[in-house]
């Protein structure tokens, strides 16, 4: 029998040294004994390992093992060291053992590691500090009883959080103290060593009782996350029985009580304002501002339901050139402005190459709300149908009437339908000036988002050149009155 002596309950390094040496010497798990604490009588028993062990040779373990062992060592069960050594021993012949979570030894080690991590997490949650009164600088002390040896691994969390305060956390096994610069550990303490009260606890209890909704009593859910073993050091836990007891009656009273008479009051100002601002349907808008407001409230088709907002046209009030796209896309819908997404950036570039100043162009869409369908978490563009284009044409016609552009460019089929009132063969008629009823000249070309979708790089470049050529023709049209 070999005895391995560890210096403390959480002496991971000591365990690691001893375990490495035992395995190298081929000592099987049932021949190894693990003890904590120095200088006891049995430590002198036969086979005790010397402190200055020089292990000959080396072996490797999977990277997950040291991390697992560091967790398990903090467990409170007495046989954790030998269980760990057992896993280490088995790793010799089964190097991929840890991947088999259903193996009983591995499952046990994982469970213990999980319990330790949970205890550490719960310590971060359930430590309750009390102010040391009359002490400067501000100093806080907590009494806590963790189910496993987690103080050392959790203390750093509190240091990071309260680096500029002084605090101590006292537990029965070990205490830690932060003085603003150094973290020190001292032996375990008693509950009486921590302050018995904190004046602010009354406020905390008030908050705890008030945030609880008696109509939703779920005691089991509470207890699974806040086990009773922690309750005795949680000031708020004293309220729990009374809150549970009164809950049902409070909830039933709320349901049973008659609706009360509301206080007398004038209709709120916002209500009045909203009623007054509501656009009257049917009247032709008298300005671009009225169109912008009207589009927000438009119910001419159902597209408003899925959209963030209507996106009206933008640009100088009497721009000589109007560009009509199909509909706002994902970005335009969220931003509330036309042509700000990827297609808009491409359009900007093409306009610049064609020598057209975007600042002097009125840009708008045939349909003012974003039509889309969900694919996973993406909103994918969906082409508006003729009914929606016709419904929304009312807004486009009004924009045309108010802006009175000399040239209108329809980008893509939907825009052509809206501008000319009939379907147009885009590729056949692109780039040509065609007279419109209101005296303006109409030109059709492709929609810039089409250029984004051309798969082949060479074809894409060609399509872009054609697009710029169409826009250059438009620039020519604008130059000759």
């Amino acid at each position, binding site marked *: 029998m070999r005895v391995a002596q560890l210096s403390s309950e959480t002496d991971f390094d000591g365990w690691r040294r001893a375990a490495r040496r035992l395995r190298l010497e081929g000592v099987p798990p049932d021949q190894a004994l693990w003890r904590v604490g120095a200088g006891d009588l049995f430590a002198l028993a036969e086979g005790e390992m010397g402190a200055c062990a020089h292990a000959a040779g080396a072996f490797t373990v999977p990277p997950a093992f040291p991390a697992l062992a560091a967790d398990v060592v903090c467990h409170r069960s007495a046989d954790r060291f030998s269980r760990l050594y057992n896993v280490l021993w088995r790793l010799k012949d089964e190097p991929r053992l840890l991947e088999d*979570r*259903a193996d009983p030894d591995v499952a046990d080690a994982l469970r213990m590691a999980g319990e330790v991590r949970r205890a550490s997490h719960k310590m971060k949650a359930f430590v309750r500090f009390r102010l040391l009164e009359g002490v400067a600088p501000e100093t806080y002390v907590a009494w806590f009883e963790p189910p496993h040896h987690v103080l050392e691994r959790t203390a750093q969390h509190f240091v990071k959080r309260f680096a*500029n305060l002084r605090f101590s956390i006292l537990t029965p096994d070990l205490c830690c103290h932060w003085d603003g610069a150094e973290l020190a550990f001292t032996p375990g303490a008693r509950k009486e060593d921590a302050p018995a009260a904190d004046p602010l606890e009354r406020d905390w209890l008030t908050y705890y009782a008030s945030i609880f909704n008696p109509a939703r009593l779920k005691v089991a859910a509470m207890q699974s996350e806040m086990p009773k073993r922690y309750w005795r050091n949680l000031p708020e836990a004293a309220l729990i029985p009374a809150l549970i007891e009164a809950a049902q009656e409070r909830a039933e009273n709320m349901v049973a009580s008659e609706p009360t008479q509301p206080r007398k009051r004038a209709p709120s100002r916002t209500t009045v304002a909203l009623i007054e601002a509501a656009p009257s349907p049917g009247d032709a808008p008298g300005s671009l501002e009225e169109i912008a407001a009207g589009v927000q409230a438009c119910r001419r088709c159902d597209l408003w339901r899925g959209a963030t907002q209507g996106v009206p046209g933008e640009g100088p009030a009497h721009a000589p050139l109007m560009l009509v796209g199909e509909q706002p896309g994902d970005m335009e819908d969220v931003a509330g402005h036309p042509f700000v997404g990827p297609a808009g950036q491409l359009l900007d570039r093409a306009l610049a190459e064609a020598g057209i100043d975007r600042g002097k162009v009125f840009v708008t869409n045939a349909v003012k709300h974003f039509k889309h369908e969900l694919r996973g978490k993406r909103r994918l563009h969906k082409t508006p149908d003729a009914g929606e284009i016709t419904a929304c044409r009312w807004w486009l016609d009004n924009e045309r009437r108010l802006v009175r552009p000399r040239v209108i460019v329809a980008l893509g089929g939907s825009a052509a339908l809206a501008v000319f009132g009939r379907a147009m063969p885009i590729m056949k008629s692109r780039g040509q000036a065609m007279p419109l009823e209101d005296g303006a000249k109409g030109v059709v070309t492709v929609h810039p988002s089409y250029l984004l979708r051309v798969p082949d790089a060479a074809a894409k470049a060609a399509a872009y050149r054609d697009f710029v050529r169409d826009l250059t023709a438009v620039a020519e049209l604008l130059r000759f009155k």
Partner: protein
Amino acid sequence: MAVLDLRRKLAILSDAAKYDASCASSGTSRRDSRGGKGVGSSGPGMGICHAYAPDGRCISLLKILLTNYCIYDCAYCVNRVSSNVPRARFTVQEVVDLTLNFYKRNYIEGLFLSSGIIRSGDYTMEEMVRVVRALRLDRDFRGYIHLKLIPEASPALTAEAALYADRVSINIELPRDDSLARLAPDKDVAGIRRTMGEVRLGIDERSEKGRRVRAPRFAPAGQSTQMIVGADEAADGEILARSETLYGAYRLRRVYYSAFSPIPDATARLPLQRPPMMREHRLYQADWLLRFYGFSRDELIGRAENLDLAIDPKLAWALRHRDRFPVDVNRADREMLLRTPGLGVRTVDRLLAMRRQRRLRLEDVRRLCGGVGKVTPFIVAADWSPLALADAEHPVAPEPRQLSLF
């Protein structure tokens, strides 16, 4: 007016805030108090729940209203202008001190501040921004802050709120726009969506790669919203369709479902009943299936349908698609394993890692799942086939229940 002491105010203004379900303190930027002059830390991982109330909800943040005075008249809300509940208002300094004092005693992870609308949206938002500005700038507080946005407030205030807060949220409140117009006549649904859009653009801009000058900090823990379930007639399918749209359009981190719960001093316009807790639970389950299990909404439920309260939505889907089962745990792909009742995301990933070592037996699955009652009818393992169950009584039927006699 009588002057209320702080404790009375705290009671009123936390009572008024409890109908907001959100309390997450997770998934933000990593920071701590070292090198600063204040307190506080937070990080990208799991949040910390410092206590649990007997309603099973965690208490992670100090969840309070700045004031419960409100000029709006939303029928479902305890703070509506026509309600007779006692009113109170915190000063900016009071909220700052309370937050820090609670934080230093390790009661909370941070602050969740909301407010009734007083005077105007801009005024209210400005007051709330004053609180978080004081916490962040004057006191160097580095804990978590969740700030409710007021949709009517100006974009500049929204941006400033997002600069100081980890998470911002605006409640969509009801699944139907029409019911919002009916029950909350002062709220403007278009404004709510526009503000959500602003937040999304701010977050997108911040996370854009390859910028020379990084955009200012903008709500690193994203945005969320809440929908009240059971206050209007919307079916579960409609509610989930709305969530799907919100996730897609505004990249929300979470949609919270809040069973319409009795409030003190209710209005005759909206009769009270017991909160539909099971319905809320099923909605959360379906929401998870949408976000993490590869289901789409129309696979789970039609627009006008309701989720089955007796069985969970994944089981319901499996029962409708018996041709896809049983699933061989040793051969099936991840997508199909995720669709198997009783197998969660973590279990599936562990199964996949383990089956590289050896063929899995039922006992292995039992160890991974911690019980296999639910999963046995749907899987084939090395030593298990559910064939024997075919003649048994319906293996997954819900427990029979005595009908009410009244």
